[in-house]
């Protein structure tokens, strides 16, 4: 049966934001509370299925923007037989920014903490085969500091809480290079974040959280052993996180990923070390995403 292509919207003067559910005027472009594009709800209303939110989370400077931008670009190029169609031109901004910078051997600018500066991507994703399930994915690129602030002090950024509450799946990036170098920071941050997720998403106290969480060891080019056995690496170098996942999460998996093939270092006028991505060799980008989708 052919469904009608147009849907008549009910006559309203306000629409709820997809993320925080604040009522906004119809003509509003950006939610006045959380800064999410109102185009998300406009697009969602035109479909007859609820969009899935897959959040990419992680500490500051772990590589969320690069990972997400690369992921979206690879999906747009139909990697692994995926087909991804952006809903709205705003959805392309993130991958455009990331690809433009990386192709010029630069990392994209830091994501500001201001919510309305975050990139939002709304994509329709499916495998290119007959009858494949279509996923409508909303994936915001959030600032790591905002995530850290919310985890440390809940309700600092309520939009993050709203996003995570509504997330069908999460991709947690952990700095594999730092972990390989022996720093405990990635383990502690991931532990706090997963504990926060547990608190936000768990419906029942004693049951395990069934939201799939893909833990991705980013910057794994620094330590190729991450690719050989991500689970083993996590068990050794992110033991606190590993133990929490085992006890509180029903669906979790560890992956390794890298975008950069090699890094060079220069310095700027303030004597800060400037990293240059010498060439781009993405690896392990799609696998976590595929896994999360398979669990949805």
């Amino acid at each position, binding site marked *: 049966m052919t469904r009608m292509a147009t849907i008549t919207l009910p006559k309203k003067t306000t629409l709820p934001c997809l993320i925080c559910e604040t009522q906004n005027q119809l003509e509003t472009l950006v939610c006045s509370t959380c800064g999410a594009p109102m185009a998300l709800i406009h697009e969602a209303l035109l479909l007859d299925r609820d969009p899935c939110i897959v959040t990419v989370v992680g500490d500051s400077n772990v590589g969320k923007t690069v990972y997400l931008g690369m992921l979206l670009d690879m999906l747009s190029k139909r990697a692994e037989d995926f087909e991804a169609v952006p809903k709205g031109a705003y959805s392309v901004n993130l991958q455009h920014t990331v690809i433009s910078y990386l192709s010029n051997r630069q990392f994209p600018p830091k994501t500001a903490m201001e919510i309305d500066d975050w990139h939002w991507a709304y994509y329709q994703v499916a495998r290119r085969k007959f009858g494949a399930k279509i996923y409508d994915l909303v994936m915001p690129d959030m600032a790591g500091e905002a995530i*850290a602030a919310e985890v440390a002090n809940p309700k600092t950024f309520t939009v993050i809480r709203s996003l995570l509450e509504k997330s069908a799946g999460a991709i947690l990036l952990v700095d594999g290079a730092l972990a390989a170098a022996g720093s405990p920071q990635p383990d502690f941050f991931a532990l706090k974040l997963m504990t926060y997720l547990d608190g936000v998403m768990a419906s029942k106290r004693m049951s395990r959280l069934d939201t799939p969480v893909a833990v991705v060891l980013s910057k794994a080019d620094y330590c190729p052993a991450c690719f050989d056995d991500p689970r083993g690496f996590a068990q050794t170098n992110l033991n606190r996180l590993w133990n929490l996942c085992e006890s509180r999460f029903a669906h979790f998996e560890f992956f390794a990923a890298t975008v950069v093939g090699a890094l060079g270092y220069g310095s700027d006028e303030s004597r800060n070390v400037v990293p240059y991505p010498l060439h781009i060799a993405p690896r392990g980008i799609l696998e976590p995403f595929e896994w999360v989708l398979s669990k949805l």
Partner: protein
Amino acid sequence: MTPAETLHCDQAIFTSVRGPMGEGYRIIAASRGMRSDEKQAITRLSPSHEALCWQPAAGPDASLYAAAFYPLPTGRLCVAYSCYAGAEHTARGGHRVYTHNVVFDEQEFPRCGFNPFHVIRAMAVVGLTVPKLTPSAVLPEVLLPIKTDVAPRMDSFAKALDSPHRRYVLQLLFDERTIIVPVRDGWLESTELLLMGLPGPMRVKVSFGAGLRFSFGRCHRLHLFCDKKGAARSRMAGQPVEYLDPAVTLTDGSPTAWLTFVDSHWSRADCAVLARRTSRPFTDFSNAARERIGKLYIAINAVPLTASLELLSLAAKHIRARSADVDDEIRRELLAETQRTLLERLTNIHWCDAQPFWSRLVAFWRLTDAAFAQPLLEAGLRSLVREDPLATAEAAIDVVSHTPALIDRDRHEKLIDEVLNLMSADLPGNAAPDRLTRLCSRWQSIRPGHPALQKLLNRCSVAPTANSTSR
């Protein structure tokens, strides 16, 4: 110069550094008195990467880049100063934003002249505007030397906004609206001047961001910044935020008395007086109160251009009025200004100008307020006696012969003495004898035996030798 007030503050530094506990934008140091919900609010409201509107500039004012002011959930107030502090440490381009916050009790706000920019200037004096990227995690409390007699600068305000736009912004603030005012530069000065247009105690409710890119997560009541390419404007559709376009001509309705008075100061760049006048501790700044006070200030400003008779009416109207709040203070200022102006006019007045006014002045002295009118009479008599001593003496008799019961007796006596002395000294030799005789008779009944009068009497005896009537 008034001595500095001391403001006791907590402080917190928000910036992006790499440290043992993590990296990125966060509060890196704070004093012990900072509460967790205050830190939470500061984290949410502070600017992060590339949130400032302009590049670092050399010069002594380079430290004043951006400012914010807002209430915290605990009821305390936060004044924040932001600047660039070198390149962002992850070297991904852009500048690191450094924000130093000071927090104090709302009860201390009057001591700051109800002006957050006095706090910022004090922060600069004690060096809090210089970025410290490696502070100790626990900061001491700080004592800020607040000087409230520093006048805001007017340099770029007039260029940024014309009169109708300025009044419009102020009215929106009174209406408790949120407003964005895009300006090319000078946002700190412009923000301060706009704030000076508000009654002091009302400013605690007007949070602002000056020089910070607009963000819905940092939605203050008032935003002034450079909106490059209209990025903020493009997001305003359907938002409960007013975006002012200085290029659009505004139709000027009938502005309220308060707006008229404030704008007159802005137009004259008379900002020190404006700040003093609006920063009074009003307890009532409702529409009606502002209208009333605005009219008073308009009257004060108009005194130099008001006719003397009207000034006397004005003084008569206000001299006995009593009210709550600071109206009395303002009335006193009005009366002082009126008195000063009249005094100035009477000091060099001529009889032809004084005549229409003199009897009213005398009546004022006698019936309304002798203390207000006494100096005026004295100045007038001193000035007029040089021109026409005889007429002045006659006028003086009118003054002294109907002495109000409540006047200062000493002063009254001095007036009589002064007039008599002046008159006898300045009376020309060819003064009309009949008039002089009548004058002396009248003076005799008021001040018999006064040495000056005796002199006059002697002259009366001598002068009318040709056709006098012997007594």
